[in-house]
């Protein structure tokens, strides 16, 4: 065993001690978040692995890094920081990781673990999606630990890798005052996710009473918001996610330890916290957090409908480089660019200096973006539906529709 692999194994053993696991179990894949630059220590660590001859032994995707490697001209910060970020991304490729550079690896057809598969994933929204929507099994793996698992192919047998730990402890229902028409609006799901995360903290949660068969993009938005406001790593949605055909399944036959009802007032308040007010001018619109799916890119192009973003409004859509190349092939990327949109890959506009005027006001359809951007890049955020975001980009100021009624 080389010194790099030995270092990775020492970390895995330490993790097993902390979690008081009885043994290590094999994994079939990993998603590594450690490729985002957080200081010299993050480079020193990967150098130790690469120079020590380590390579990953399972199929491993990479999360976003600091820099859009395909469009480096979009970086507006310190060039030295960009070169450090780029070097870190390169070093993770040298370990044998796939250069996917996306926070939504589950949207890549060949990177989706099957139900019951044991994996080691980093990035909070990806962890929530893998566990909840795919039914794969991962704990919340952080920096260093995710790549150590990929190199050793092992994780401690603890937490969400074990069936019993996947049982819902908290059951959340929507109140009778929430109108049914709202359940068919995309924008409900990030708002609900914010509330779910706050209520759940780190507990496994089941959301009951939603219509069956909720689509992946809505579950993605719900999970990303819930994993921002809370430490949610697994949420069941009864009738929609694979371990919850019924509430009894989600609870594994046990009684819930706690129950909560989300009222229309709770939702309105959460939407306001995300940035629900505001009717003034905007300087930017940021879509695609987590990275936009093929369907979401097409929807944005359709909503733009041949119109162009207003002068002075930066319309930014983030996606995976693999999704972008599909969109280039089917013409969607061209339609977006003709409408004035910039397409960002490999990174995200709330973690790197990308926006021309980051202080905003910036409008977004993402609960996660709205949650983190104020502290990360100092943005004043206006939250809205995808349709409101597009109409606002065209108008140059916040445009609201009647989705949430007249407050």
């Amino acid at each position, binding site marked *: 065993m080389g010194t790099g692999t030995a*270092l990775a194994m*020492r*970390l895995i053993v*330490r*993790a097993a*001690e*902390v*979690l008081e696991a009885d043994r290590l179990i094999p994994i079939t894949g990993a998603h590594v*978040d*450690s490729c*985002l630059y*957080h*200081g*010299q*220590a*993050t480079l*020193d*660590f990967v150098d*130790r692995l690469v120079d020590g001859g380590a390579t990953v032994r399972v199929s491993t995707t990479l999360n976003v890094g600091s820099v859009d490697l395909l469009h480096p001209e979009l970086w507006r910060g310190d060039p030295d920081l960009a070169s450090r970020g780029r070097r870190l991304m390169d070093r993770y490729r040298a370990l044998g990781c796939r250069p996917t550079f996306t926070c939504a690896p589950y949207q890549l057809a060949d990177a989706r673990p099957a139900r019951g598969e044991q994996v080691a994933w*980093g*990035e*909070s929204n990806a962890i929530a999606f893998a566990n909840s929507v795919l039914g794969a099994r991962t*704990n*919340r*793996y*952080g*920096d*260093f*630990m995710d790549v150590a698992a990929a190199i050793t192919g092992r994780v401690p047998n603890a937490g969400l890798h074990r069936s019993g730990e996947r049982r819902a402890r908290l059951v959340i229902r929507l109140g009778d005052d929430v109108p049914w028409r709202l359940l068919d609006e995309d924008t409900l799901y990030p708002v609900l996710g914010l509330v779910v995360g706050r209520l759940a903290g780190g507990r496994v949660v089941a959301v009951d009473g939603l219509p069956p068969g909720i689509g992946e993009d809505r579950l993605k938005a719900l999970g990303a918001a819930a994993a921002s406001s809370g*430490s949610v790593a697994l949420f069941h949605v009864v009738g929609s996610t694979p371990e919850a055909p019924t509430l009894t399944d989600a609870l594994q036959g046990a009684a819930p330890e706690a129950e909560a009802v989300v009222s229309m007032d709770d939702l309105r308040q959460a939407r306001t916290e995300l940035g629900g007010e505001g009717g003034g001018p905007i300087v930017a619109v940021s879509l695609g957090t987590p990275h936009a799916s093929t369907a979401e890119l097409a929807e944005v192009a359709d909503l733009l409908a041949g119109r162009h973003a207003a002068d002075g409004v930066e319309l930014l859509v983030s996606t995976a480089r693999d999704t972008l190349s599909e969109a280039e092939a089917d013409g969607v990327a061209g339609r977006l660019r003709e409408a004035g949109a910039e397409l960002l890959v490999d990174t995200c506009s709330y973690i790197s200096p990308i926006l021309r005027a980051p202080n905003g006001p910036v409008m977004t359809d993402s609960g996660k973006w709205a949650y*983190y951007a104020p*502290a*990360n890049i100092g943005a004043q955020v206006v939250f809205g539906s995808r349709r409101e975001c597009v109409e606002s980009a065209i108008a140059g100021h916040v445009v609201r529709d009647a989705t949430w009624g007249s407050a």
Partner: protein
Amino acid sequence: MGLRVSGRLIAPGRAHAPALVLEEPLSLWGGLDPATGRVIEPRHPQHGELVTGRVLLMPAARGSSSSASVLAEAARAGTAPAGIVLGEPDLILAIGAAVADELYGIQVPIAVVTPDVLAEVRTGEPVDIGPEGLTAD
């Protein structure tokens, strides 16, 4: 002698330093500036406090998995806390401390104690972390 508790260590090492009690959980990512060692989360009750050379006490770590990187970077920069005391085990911080030890030979011991013990310690009181656990006068 003061209070003595056999807290479990999830990261090894020794510390003898004044306590800094965090009234709310802190995510080191976005919450601690490794360049200065200060708490930078604006809404945190201990916003502006220096963690360097103090034993950080908090009921639980919070949030981002990138906190491991921030702890290792703070150790490298010489701004890390002398030690950490938690009310529950935290894998992310334990791995951050393990990496600081591996890369730089700098130990940031992390002890886990019961919440009632945590509540006994006040900011400024001297705290010892060693193999035998946590000691506070």
